[in-house]
């Protein structure tokens, strides 16, 4: 029973959502809408579970008094205050302030760090060890160069070559990758829908 219900739920919900995809019928449509709304609700509850985990981990750290105790306290306070502000007064300027002056700059600067990281990663990738690495190097430097505003004034062929690179090899490679991903997605989804794979069932059988 412990396994039967979850597996049935997965197969039934999956089947319903699939039917909704392929058939146009008001009844299936209505059921599909209910299901997808339900998924949203469940995801919100999962988030709540996740928050409890963050709180537990960091409160334990605060209590145990390690070196990161202060930082953990900051985390917990930030979480609680933001949640309280957002829930009690969703339209107050307070939450906008937090979003605009704390959350946005932090997230944006975390992304900005990637500019450095991509350069240091390129250092390794640009080593010409074989033909493939050489192609990677040439293609990325060319695309970088062709994007510069004055590259067109150096030679009129540069923009057309860039256009060709994007139209032919880049399209081919991305389409090939997408086909591969599509095949992988199909089999993996089928594993779930046919209940061959049951990662959600905690009491799994040994493989």
């Amino acid at each position, binding site marked *: 029973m412990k396994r039967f219900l979850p597996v049935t739920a997965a197969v039934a919900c999956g089947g319903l959502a699939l039917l909704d995809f392929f058939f146009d019928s008001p009844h299936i449509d209505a059921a*599909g809408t209910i299901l997808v709304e339900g998924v*949203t609700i469940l995801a919100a509850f999962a988030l709540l579970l996740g928050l409890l985990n963050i709180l537990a981990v960091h409160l334990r750290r605060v209590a145990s008094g390690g070196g990161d105790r202060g930082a953990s306290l900051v985390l917990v306070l930030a979480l609680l205050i933001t949640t309280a502000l957002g829930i009690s007064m969703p339209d107050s300027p307070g939450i906008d302030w937090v979003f605009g002056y704390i959350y946005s700059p932090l*997230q*944006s600067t975390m992304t900005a760090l990637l500019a*450095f990281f991509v*350069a240091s990663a390129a250092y390794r990738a*640009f080593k010409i060890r074989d033909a493939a690495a050489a192609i990677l190097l040439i293609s990325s430097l060319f695309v970088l160069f062709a994007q*510069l505003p004055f590259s067109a*004034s150096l030679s009129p062929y540069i923009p057309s070559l860039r256009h060709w690179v994007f139209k032919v090899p880049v399209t081919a490679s*991305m389409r090939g990758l997408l086909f591969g991903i599509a095949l992988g997605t199909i089999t993996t989804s089928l594993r779930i829908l046919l209940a061959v794979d049951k990662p959600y069932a905690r009491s799994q059988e040994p493989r």
Partner: protein
Amino acid sequence: MIVCPACQHRNPEGAEVCEACGASLEGFAYRVCPKCGALNPAENLFCHRCLERLAGATSAKGEQPPATEEAEKVLAEVEEEEGTLPPFLVEQVEEAEGAPPVAEEPAPSEEEFPEALPPFIEVEEEEEEPVSEVEGPGGGETLEAVQAEAPAVPSEEREEKEEELPQVVVNPLAGVEDVLPLEAGISLPHRAEPLPTEGPTEKERADADLLRRIAEEGPPLQEAPRKAEEKGVRRLSGSGRALIYLLVLLAAVIPFFTGGQTARWVSPRRSVGVFADVMSRLPVHTPVLVSFDYSPAYGEELDPLARAVVQQLAARSVPMVVMSTKPEGIGIAEKVCTAVAQEMDNYRYGEHYAVLGYLPGEEAGLRTLRKGLADAFREDYVRHRPLSEIPVVSGIASVTDLEHIIVLSDESGIVRRWIEQVRRENTVLLHALVSARIEPTLIPYAQAGQLETLIGGAYGAAEYERATGMRGAAAQTVDADAVLFLVMLLIAVVTNVVLISGDKGRSPRR
């Protein structure tokens, strides 16, 4: 570094109790090699991987290779003989069997192992036991697995090695040690020797079982390049990294001093031109749906583009419905729209544009959008009124009533989601204004006509400003891109010069 046996925390050399859990470090099990990071049994004098001398490991043995090194070596020799022991070992085996039962004294624990060992012969005596166990029933697979992976050494070479045994530094199991944790098997002394009086203890049984299970772990499909070596090739030193970071930072600072010298060369690409044209011809009574599906992370890249598009729509009083499928996106949407509406007096909330809000549920959310706008958003985001009371939205039942949807996104998955869930009816034209990072991923969709427009954010904004004749900030920073190109070129040159001068003959990465 010393690894705490209780919690695996890495403590500095010389620590007596674990910093993390307070457990005593007396009799700690493992020491981390300061050079390559490999984990070594506490008794090792030298790292089993890179042969670096391990800090704190002082012993009367001086500079001799550590015991396990030789042990491994001998074991390899034995295995090359396909189970038949070399003559000198056979003698040792006979000696050992004839000797009084070792088990009368407790089996030496791992910590005591090296000190308790007299030099060379003792090592061999330790050694033959794992071998005999391996040959025994149930252990046969271990040996086979090892043999399958062990490098075949010609017999002359082996004889040479036998002669210079004590000095050999090269680990003959070099390719094998990563496959099977031989150290574990070797450094569990006396485990498998059947005792005349009593059977193996519980612990010994568990250990033997563990070894068997590890041995049964399927061999890898093909021998891959070794980890430690690969690190050396691929990882950048701290100073090199700092230099690269500095160069990138310099490149980003440049436009503050040059002030957009290269901006005059900016010319819109065809796709940008076409999109600007479409936007300038939109009928003034059909609303456009704009979805701000990006987070503040890419705000610096996509905000200028978003602002330019919203400005152009507002200037022509084209009605606009704004939403987001990313929780953070709606804040940005409101900010951009309010800023633009403040500039344009005759572009009013409710009448000309409305911010519907955040649509949760990714795929699922978009499907509800297809079924009905009022189902997806019960009320608008700014004034919290039902959608039916907002003039600009009241004519729209679902997204299929729209002609154009503009998706501003920083994730290819989101655009794909719009294509897969909303674009299916072939009636809506989808314009994707995306982060330059994901632009190439979406090209096949643009080529297939599933996307009407595809514009990369980083340079798209400057080109779009030029195409529409607006004055914006995006063009002012294009100088930096030229410097970025130079930095990347420099990186490419340097890495290959270093490669040619220093790293000849290293194995390719894949």
